């Protein structure tokens, strides 16, 4: 909503500057976003009379003489074809300034002296979008009664400011200049002067000339109308044009302009019909028939739905109620008799219709928020007055006013004590009542403790006591609300174990030198193919977005991998070659049809991606990220989460991973993730040439099994004994199986088992490998050599038996 500052001053005395007013309104909740001066830099331009016009030979120019005082003649050259003797025009004198920093000087054009400039609307800084059709070409012609020498800023209303409001959806009442004035009146404690529609009417009764019926009273609560005959369709006067321009509207002609003007003034959208185009001089308000169509004012044919409300004449639809008029009954230059419609249409219905037609108009915006039922007829009368003022004609006596759904004034009971109880303020009861009264909430009863107020018709947003409390607070001033802390004591809040452990994971990974990334939850469905998911894979069951921004963001992710790959690629393309990143976020799995009580399975997932190597400096060469680097990170996480029962099982069946270089992670026997080298085919699909290492872990499982509890083992009092055991086994034997066998075979004396060497080739037979374990034995006494040797032999015997192990020579 944009409104002229001077227009507001017509209804209420404002002593504040436009900027000060904007501040007051903003602090009270009617935010003024910008204050824009309408004068874009015009000075020294005054009204002048063109005395004569002679063409300058061989040019398109005219030599004119003008006078600004009726006495002195000024010679000026003008290029506009429409300049003519006898016109009054805006004349920029020598020394005048025009928008864009133009300064008018004495000049010679084609050798002819020119002492000023005759201006067009555009040259005076009028927004080209808002210049009426008759002013578009050539110089601006002023009305004949313009007094010579009057500054053009005064004539065009350029000494004004536009207040650009940023209205919250509840304050649609401020889509009306009058209602804004009422708001200002309350804030400044000033009287508001309402316009009084006065006009000369004939003795006819409009109801003899028009037959109005409402078939759908549930959608059209009130339908009023006025009629004016013998009007001249012509441009509106400048003052009216200016106010519409301030509101961001382009003046068209007096009929259209007046309907727009009254809409801006009262917030009541109007529609003007050419009376003679209305078949049978009938209006019927009904819902559309199946397959009905209408061509709207913008020359678009609209296909209607059967619950859309239409205004129809005796033969056809002539308007989509509250949204847009039809072309068939449009007012034209030839129109002489006009029927003015002013109605209340049901807000939801207008909203649905305008949304479905994709047609939002100034009218529909107002109707869908709910307009003031009480001023429906007044607005029509105001329009009749202004049409007569701008185009002559006679207003037909009487009025159409079908009002089938009577509006009951809303009343609210307010316990006065509740105001301060909810706000934490100390506002007196008197002040509360004064504020509500100033906002036109009339107090209809008052028992000392509680009052009942009647909500003014233009404030449909107010219906409960809390609404009134907000009214009081915002006028009294939000800055008077003190800063207190809630009553009662409360200890520190706590995180759930799962929340704590998710934080632990993030902190640990950052500590290990990985950077946290964050990707959109949306993915392109084509990742299913790029990642080679089998046909029945659950990751194909992604949640599709009905109205996505693009295919790229068409589905919710079912895996953390697409985002990680995107990040890897982005960084690779920006020459960040060495990448070690993680993301902790949700994936969304569709498990059956989505319904309000069966939503998607949202699983917290941790993803890791690595490529390249760790940092290289003058002092060290970086370590290549590889399977075991990544596994080291995973192991570190398991340590941090205090998960002891961890298993790594070769993973050969996941399309994302290299079948020989990937493992499933099991914790306490539950599958909790997979990690390894990216399959070269998948790397190809994403256009990555380097080896990439990925991990995906199910955070929900990890935090269920993990813990932040620490239980310290006492330090041994006696020295440990260490023995190395290097065995040769077939290369297919898994190191973890050997380790498990060792731990199984050892007694409680065996304290720790570590692999310190793995070797193949050389003296080791083909198809075999050597693995060397360091075994630590520990007891609460010093172990003898014999005891340790016995343990060693027992363990080795098991390896020999189970794995055909031999001692490495």
């Amino acid at each position: 909503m944009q409104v002229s500052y001077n227009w507001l001053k017509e209804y209420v005395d404002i002593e504040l500057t436009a900027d000060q007013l904007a501040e007051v309104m903003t602090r009270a909740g009617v935010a003024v976003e910008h204050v824009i001066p309408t004068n874009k830099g015009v000075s020294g331009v005054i009204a002048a009379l063109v005395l004569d016009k002679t063409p300058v030979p061989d040019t398109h120019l005219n030599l004119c003489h003008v006078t600004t005082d009726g006495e002195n003649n000024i010679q000026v050259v003008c290029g506009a074809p429409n300049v003519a003797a006898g016109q009054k025009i805006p004349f920029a004198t020598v020394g005048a300034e025009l928008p864009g920093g133009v300064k008018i000087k004495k000049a010679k054009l084609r050798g002819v002296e020119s002492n000023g400039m005759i201006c067009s609307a555009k040259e005076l800084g009028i927004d080209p979008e808002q210049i009426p059709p008759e002013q578009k070409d050539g110089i601006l012609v002023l009305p004949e009664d313009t007094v010579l020498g009057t500054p053009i800023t005064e004539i065009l209303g350029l000494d004004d400011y536009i207040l650009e409001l940023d209205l919250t959806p509840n304050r649609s009442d401020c889509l009306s200049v009058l209602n804004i004035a009422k708001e200002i009146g309350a804030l400044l404690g000033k009287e508001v002067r309402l316009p009084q529609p006065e006009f000369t009417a004939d003795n006819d009764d409009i109801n003899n000339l028009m037959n109005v019926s409402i078939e759908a009273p549930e959608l059209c609560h009130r339908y009023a109308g006025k009629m004016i005959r013998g009007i001249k369709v012509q441009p509106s006067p400048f003052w009216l044009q200016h106010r519409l321009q301030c509101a961001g509207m382009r003046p068209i002609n007096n009929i259209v302009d007046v309907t727009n003007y009254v809409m801006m003034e009262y917030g009541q959208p109007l529609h003007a019909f050419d009376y003679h185009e209305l078949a049978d001089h009938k209006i019927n308000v009904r819902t559309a028939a199946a397959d009905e169509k209408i061509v709207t004012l913008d020359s678009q044919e609209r296909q209607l739905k059967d619950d859309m409300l239409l205004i129809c004449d005796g033969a056809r639809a002539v308007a989509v109620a509250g949204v847009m008029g039809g072309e068939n009954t449009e007012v034209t230059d030839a129109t002489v008799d006009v029927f003015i419609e002013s109605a209340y249409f049901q807000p939801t219905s207008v909203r649905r219709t305008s949304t479905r037609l994709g047609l939002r108009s100034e009218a529909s915006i107002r109707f869908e928020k709910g307009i003031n039922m009480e001023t429906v007829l007044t607005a029509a009368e105001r329009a009749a007055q202004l049409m007569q003022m701008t185009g002559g004609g006679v207003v037909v006596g009487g009025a159409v006013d079908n009002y089938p759904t009577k509006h009951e004034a809303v009343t609210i009971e307010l316990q006065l004590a509740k105001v301060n109880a909810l706000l934490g303020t100390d506002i007196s009861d008197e002040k509360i009542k004064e504020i509500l009264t100033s906002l036109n909430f009339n107090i209809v009863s008052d028992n000392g403790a509680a009052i009942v107020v009647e909500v003014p018709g233009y404030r449909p947003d107010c219906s409960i006591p809390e609404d009134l409390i907000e009214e009081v607070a915002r006028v009294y001033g939000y800055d008077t609300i003190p800063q207190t802390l809630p009553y009662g004591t409360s200890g520190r809040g706590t995180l759930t174990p799962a929340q704590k452990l998710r934080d632990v994971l993030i902190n640990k990974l950052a500590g290990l030198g990985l950077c946290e990334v964050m990707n959109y939850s949306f993915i392109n469905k084509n990742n299913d193919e790029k990642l080679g998911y089998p046909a029945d894979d659950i990751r194909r069951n992604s949640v599709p977005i009905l109205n996505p921004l693009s295919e790229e963001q068409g589905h919710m992710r079912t895996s953390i991998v697409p985002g990680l790959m995107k990040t890897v690629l982005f960084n690779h393309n920006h020459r960040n070659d060495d990448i070690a990143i993680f993301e902790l976020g949700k994936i969304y799995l569709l498990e059956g049809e989505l319904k309000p009580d069966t939503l998607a399975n949202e699983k917290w997932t941790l993803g890791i991606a690595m490529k390249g190597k760790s940092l290289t400096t003058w002092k060290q060469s970086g370590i290549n990220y590889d399977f075991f680097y990544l596994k080291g990170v995973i192991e570190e996480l398991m340590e941090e989460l205090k998960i002891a029962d961890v298993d790594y099982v070769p993973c050969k069946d996941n399309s994302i991973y290299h079948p020989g270089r990937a493992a499933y992670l099991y914790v306490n026997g539950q599958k909790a993730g997979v990690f390894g080298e990216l399959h070269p085919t998948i790397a190809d699909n994403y256009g990555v040439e380097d080896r990439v290492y990925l991990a995906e872990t199910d955070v929900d499982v990890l935090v269920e099994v993990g813990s932040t509890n620490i239980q310290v083992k006492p330090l041994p009092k006696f020295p440990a004994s260490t023995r190395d055991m290097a065995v040769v086994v077939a290369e297919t034997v898994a190191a973890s199986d050997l380790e498990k066998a060792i731990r199984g075979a050892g007694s409680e004396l065996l304290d720790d088992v570590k692999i310190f060497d793995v070797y193949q080739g050389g003296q080791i037979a083909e198809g075999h490998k050597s693995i060397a374990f360091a075994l630590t034995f520990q007891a609460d006494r010093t172990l003898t050599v014999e005891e340790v040797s016995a343990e060693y032999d027992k363990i080795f015997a098991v390896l020999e038996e189970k794995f055909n192990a031999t001692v490495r020579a």
Partner: protein
Amino acid sequence: MRDELIKIKEAAVQALEEATSMDYLNEQKVRFLGKKGELTTILKGMGKLSAEERPVVGQLANEVRDEINQVLDRKMAEVKTALQEAKLASETLDVTLPGRAVNHGTKHPITKVIDEAKQIFLGLGFEVAEGPEIESDYYNFEALNLPKDHPARDMQDTFYINPEIVLRTQTSGVQVHSMEEKQGALPVKVICPGKVYRKDDDATHSPMFHQIEGLLVDKNIRMSDLNGLLLSFCQEMFGKDTKIRMRPSYFPFTEPSVEIDISCCMCHGEGCRMCSNTGWLEILGAGMVHPNVLRAGGYDPEEVSGFAFGLGVERIAMLKYGINDLRLMYENDLRFLRQF
């Protein structure tokens, strides 16, 4: 014998004074004072001396030994110091060379802000609640006093999954979830940080972003409590001298509603480009929980009241860290992320 003793002493002192190494000093110690050393050897002739001479020579011998020992100790200390100094000199590094690099891991700025906010609100007695991101229309809109066809639904462009299911446009849905979980118990005191989605993508809007919702429902909760609590939060988050101001606003799920500004953390209220010369920065929306929302959560608005607020995490991160382009948050350029 006396002369010999004096000679040994002089020879020893001279030899010791020339010493530059520990090995040499030890050699000299053996040479003069050892079991087979010169002094010992001489003293073996003591038996041949007369009874009168023996004590005198004996005393002299002791004096000679003491003096040699004294010089020896002094020289040993000197040599040790000299050696240490030489060693230290030879080991000097160019300490201005960079250190061995340890991979620099970082948390995402969004996580950092959420962490900080979580700590502040935990300290104020709040718990952390969670809720689904793929949410029913009921919790995201209807329970929040936003029935279908409510014009305020235009405030947010919603991603729909189907007519009943949306991507949550706000963390506010957690308000009603949290109240339902509490089953009427008081207080309900939670924050909910999380991802939200709106159909908007330009320089200042991202289709996915983060909010932190806050809700406190209890007996006698006042708007002044909201004002005071958020002042505490903003001062912790942005600095002790931060001021806040409230402006009337509108949210369907709060009444009265308020927009909260903080004094500009760049210019401290004097006016700069960041705050468009107003001295204030818009930071969050809040208000007193609407009676309909309390009812939807199973609470009686005649018995309890509450406030709710919603913080934009990206906005805070941009202000706190001087990030000038929202898109940096989700591009994940490591050159950006490594700065946190």
